[in-house]
């Protein structure tokens, strides 16, 4: 089975809006997006976050019965995934394509978890059975599979910002081993005062953001190819996140000198500066931005290095297929 894998499609939901185009425009403008106030618990100050704007038109997929009780984290995941899947949707729904799904989360369905636990503390006998099922980490991936009618492999991975690239590696393995024909790799998060407060404990001043990003990986030739994914470098034995990031990136014999995106980059115009801290979804936005730059011909090879908050560092490289140099 061929080891060459290509990016069939990309999708994004972010504070810039619904779709890759909105993300691309926001990054091109290099201006930090406006923040919104998110109320905290009673008696506490509100938090500054970057929310996903209300869509101009209600997405059609929201009429699916599975999504009626679901929270934003699932809506974002489905929207980004459907955009990445594009015209392949129909073939997947007909069962003509074996689709794998890997969904990564760091904070997951925190809205419903917080609401449900609050109800439990008040009186567990009256806590809502409608909320609890949506608190499981794999709810977004499950809803996505239901929307697509997809009975194939479906894993939800937990981790920090690096979990998206880990998911990319897992999807790549499934493809190389011919377990699937296409693999949707998604990461999704939703804003909540609980995560905003927690982020402030570690990185005061960072603005949390919500949304999702998705890549659809396949074997058929496309404009952009997945070149390599490094071994992750876990934060053990006192290694710093910066040193881990360097160790991850140095595994590639050739640097992606055209475009190098990194999660530690807070400089004006960087993904984190413009969009905010998107946790696992932030990892996905970096990869979507890299692939979009390659598709648009703004770069020939792009690298993404993610140094996660509390797990590991990992790096990946993409390249235009018409760029002959391979590492």
């Amino acid at each position: 089975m061929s080891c060459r894998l290509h990016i069939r499609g990309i999708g994004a939901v972010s504070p810039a809006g619904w779709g890759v185009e909105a993300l691309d425009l926001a990054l091109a403008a290099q201006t930090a997006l406006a923040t919104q106030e998110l109320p905290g618990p009673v008696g506490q100050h509100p938090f500054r976050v970057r929310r996903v704007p209300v869509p101009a038109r209600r997405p059609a997929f929201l009429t699916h019965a599975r999504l009626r009780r679901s929270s934003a984290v699932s809506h974002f995941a489905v929207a980004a995934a459907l955009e990445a899947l594009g015209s392949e949707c129909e073939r997947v729904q007909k069962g003509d394509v074996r689709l794998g799904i890997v969904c990564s989360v760091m904070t997951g369905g925190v809205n419903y978890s917080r609401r449900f636990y609050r109800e439990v503390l008040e009186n567990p006998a009256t806590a809502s059975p409608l909320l609890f099922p949506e608190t499981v980490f794999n709810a977004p991936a499950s809803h996505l599979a239901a929307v697509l009618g997809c009975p194939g492999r479906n894993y939800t991975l937990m981790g920090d910002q690096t979990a998206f690239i880990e998911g990319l590696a897992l999807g790549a393995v499934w493809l190389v081993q011919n377990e699937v024909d296409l693999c949707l790799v998604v990461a999704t998060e939703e804003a909540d005062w609980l995560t905003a407060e927690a982020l402030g404990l570690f990185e005061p001043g960072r603005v949390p953001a919500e949304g999702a990003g998705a890549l659809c990986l396949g074997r058929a030739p496309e404009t952009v190819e997945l070149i390599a994914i490094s071994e992750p470098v876990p934060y053990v034995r006192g290694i710093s996140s910066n040193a881990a990031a360097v160790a991850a990136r140095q595994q590639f014999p050739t640097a992606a000198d055209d475009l190098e995106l990194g999660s530690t980059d807070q400089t004006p115009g960087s993904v984190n500066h413009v969009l905010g801290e998107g946790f696992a979804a932030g990892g996905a936005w970096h990869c979507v931005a890299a692939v979009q730059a390659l598709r648009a011909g703004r770069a020939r090879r792009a690298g993404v290095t993610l140094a996660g908050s509390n797990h590991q560092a990992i790096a990946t490289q993409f390249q235009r297929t018409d760029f002959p140099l391979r590492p």
Partner: protein
Amino acid sequence: MLFPRPSATGASHRVFITGAGLITALGTGWKVHDEGFRSGRRAIRPVRHFDVSRQRTQTAGEVDLPAQLPTTLLPPQHERRLDRAARLLLVAAHEAWHQAGWTRGPENLPVVLGTTSAGMTLGEAYFRQAITPPFRRSGQAHRIRHYQAQRQALDLMDAFGFQGPTTIIANACASGANAIGHAFELIRSGRAHRVLAGGYDGLCQLVFAGFDSLQALSPTTCRPFGVDRDGLALGEGAAVFCLESETSARQRQAERLGEVVGYGVVTDVHHLTQPQPEGLAALAAMKAACTQAGITAGQIGYLNAHGTGTVHNDRAEAAAINQWAGSTAPALRVSSTKSSIGHLLGAAGAVEVLVCLLALRGQWLPPENGVTHLDSLCRFPVVTAPQEHAFDFALTNSFGFGGANASLILRR
């Protein structure tokens, strides 16, 4: 590099278990579980770990954690910070690691873990403090740091002195089975020689109240496949395995405790919490596992069912087993050990692999407790009393919210 992987040649490698450890409400380690399952002991009792006085159900398979954690490379001040789930994981991993005779070294050793809640008790404590005036930050950073599953994976690396890629699978109650299955695939495909894999979950108030809110918990006793079954019992625990390739095990002259030979994984898109009534996804998972193992249903000597004791799960699983086993169903031995230790959620799949391993090695069958009248849907016998049994293959099913369905097959 994770991709491309130069070592993946396309050849299929055999995958052996050379170490395994577990902790459940029955106790800690192989011996106590061998005795407990063999005699059909039931370890469900009133929950003491948090307040359940206002819940519909007040019992679960709660673990008596050892007073002292086993000695590892973790400094004492770090050990003290570990929450309940992390302690369960560490205890199980310690037994597996030492049984396998693995030593610390520079090797890139992958870790694959399954969990549904990770350090949720810390998440709960964080939330309670965050909403209770006066609002204090004391201890909150620690709770966040140790709440997430990646911290528990890093703790394992620090405890045993290794490092490597981590995969943490959160596929609800199939997570533990998926973790073993993924580790199996890593070795089988030649992408790793050795993998540390397992599942773990600790009891916590949020999840207990969640299942109670769904009225999925039995207010009496958990009776999987019983005609009068009325729900599941929750439990907690962990099981960890040292898996390695035949070459690696042979080079080390390691004892092969058992072999993983098949893994089937399918998604049920019927409903977020309920299985498709005919168990079609479960059927497909069992078939896929058998195909990979190169065996038929008739060769499975024991099936450890997911068998939660809920009306919906057991009906769908019984239908799936009936169809899968076909004419061999009357000879198939089935039981659900959840009646003894409860449903261990993210740990369930891994613990039940170890139950199968114990049964295969001892050539006995773990009985169910409390079932007096079997549901007529079951065309297969359910083991309700301890018995000896000669068999070579065992299959274990794990199904979870979100439609995660996984089956694993072990060979003696």
